[in-house]
């Protein structure tokens, strides 16, 4: 099998301090990137620099530190928005994708969803793109229905079109499945949903970290992603929405920063996106996310994607040679992101993860916050190996050797 590199792996790996550590005396092979990614030194340094040199609150005080903090925070907003082809006025900083969908549930859903309305999600969603809509449907007396899947792990567009005939109020769909890796045709989905009069929300948590994304090219009403899955810090993410939509929406959290004027009997709201950023925002981590974006831009998202396609191609072939290996999701690496969910004979994923841990290999095991999808796959749990820029062919070989060892222990 071909082992050619698009990234300078030696250099990339040297940028991530954690890769120098060992686990149980073995080299760390980190393959849980769909869960959270490791951080390059540039991101860690950005946090240290902010707290060491510029720390103060933003948008308030007039002294030098406050101006620097504000400028750094807003520069981060420009970078993050620009990274996905949006304007900074359309970007609300949130804790992560989960907070983004919950913000939409309250700030948009409470006024726009009525009794009897239909909300549409899909069977391949992460819980963060299911549960908020269940809660919204329950509080409003609306109905929530799901687009089905085809056996190859892609969305069943016929079932989608059928649901569109019922004029849904909202279509909430993932850009890329965190289990199957399936990349959905969000341009087609958004266009059809829009034509049916639905508001669209796309969960980009597994897409933005792994491939070039230009949201202008498919124009969702809402788009959300998390910083920690794209080399940035935890606790920071983005909700992107059209400016007019943000303007007509009600606030989410009330408090400082989000107001224009406060009286005892009423208040008026700050301009968007500040209207949705109540309280002291996560300044340092937004700046850290900006640094992560600089890092990814430096590598080039086209190359990041190509790197993952090659690793995925190599891994799918290598692992398929193991007796008892069964993977879920589309077979063509070009149709999926660098994630492989699988089961291995009758070795339970948690047992497998424990055995691999002994070899220094970190994979995710369990239901991957996608229980409805696991039920559809008819499995209680799966193992998942997922890649990012620092993963190498050696990591795939280590995974394969680890699986062989598990096979020996369990006498597969």
């Amino acid at each position, binding site marked *: 099998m071909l082992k050619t590199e698009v990234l300078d792996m030696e250099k990339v790996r040297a940028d991530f301090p954690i890769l120098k550590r060992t686990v*149980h005396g073995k080299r760390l092979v980190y393959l849980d990137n769909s869960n959270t990614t490791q951080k390059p030194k540039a991101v860690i340094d950005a946090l240290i620099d902010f707290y060491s040199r510029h720390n103060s609150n933003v948008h308030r005080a007039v002294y030098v530190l406050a101006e620097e903090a504000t400028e750094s925070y807003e520069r981060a907003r420009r970078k993050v928005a620009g990274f996905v082809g949006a304007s900074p006025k359309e970007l609300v900083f949130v804790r992560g994708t989960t907070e983004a969908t919950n913000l939409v549930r309250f700030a948009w859903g409470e006024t726009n969803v009525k009794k009897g309305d239909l909300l549409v999600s899909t069977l391949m969603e992460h819980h963060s793109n299911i549960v908020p809509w269940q809660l919204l449907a329950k509080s409003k007396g609306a109905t929530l229905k799901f687009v089905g899947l085809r056996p190859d792990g892609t969305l069943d567009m016929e079932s989608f079109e059928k649901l569109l005939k019922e004029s849904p109020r909202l279509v909430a769909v993932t850009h890329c499945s965190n289990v199957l890796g399936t990349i959905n045709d969000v341009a087609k989905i958004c266009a059809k949903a829009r034509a049916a009069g639905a508001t669209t929300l796309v969960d980009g948590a597994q897409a933005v970290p792994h491939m070039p994304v230009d949201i202008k090219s498919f124009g969702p009403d809402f788009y959300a992603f998390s910083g920690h899955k794209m080399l940035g810090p935890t606790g920071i993410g983005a909700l992107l929405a059209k400016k007019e939509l943000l303007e007509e929406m009600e606030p989410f959290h009330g408090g400082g920063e989000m107001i224009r004027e406060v009286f005892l009997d009423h208040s008026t709201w700050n301009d968007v996106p500040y209207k949705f950023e109540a309280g002291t925002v996560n300044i340092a981590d937004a700046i850290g996310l900006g640094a992560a974006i600089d890092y990814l831009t430096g590598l080039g998202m086209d190359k990041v994607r190509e790197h993952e396609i090659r690793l995925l191609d190599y891994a799918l072939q290598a692992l398929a040679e193991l007796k008892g290996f069964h993977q879920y999701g589309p077979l063509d690496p070009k149709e999926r992101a660098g994630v492989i969910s699988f089961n291995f004979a*009758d*070795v*339970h*994923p*948690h*047992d497998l993860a*424990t*055995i691999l*841990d*002994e070899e220094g290999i970190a994979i995710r*095991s*369990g*239901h991957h916050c996608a*229980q409805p999808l*696991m039920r559809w796959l008819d499995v*209680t*749990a799966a193992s998942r190996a997922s890649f990012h820029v620092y993963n190498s062919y050696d990591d795939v070989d280590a995974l394969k050797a680890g699986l062989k*060892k598990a096979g020996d*222990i*369990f*006498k597969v």
Partner: protein
Amino acid sequence: MSGADIYRELILDYYRNPRNFGKLEKFDIDSRDTNPLCGDEVEIQIRVGEGQKIEDIKFVGKGCAISQASASMLTELAKGKKLDWVREVTKDDVFKMLGNPDLGPSRVKCALLGLKVLKTGVYGYLGARYEDSDGPGETP
């Protein structure tokens, strides 16, 4: 050392051939719980006989080798004992039963799921409430 060492013959044997696996036709206690982190499931049914004895006990479940072997071995241990024994049996007893494998904090929950289900069911039957000590800020 934790890790692969825990998969000794005993645990694998109970995982592949679980004893007391199935459901009872007649039962007085039916208790089920899941481990939300892993998705392990265990359901235990007990028929209570004379003198508050565990006359029969069966379990069904899905999950990792540790959780299923532990639940199965626990049913064997409990069969024929008085319900009060369930109040006395401890987490350490379960670890001992499993051969004292060195489990990490996350896998300890797998090992103890059966015990939790057993205790919850029996305590409930006896009109008491079983409080599990795992919670935020606590390491099992």
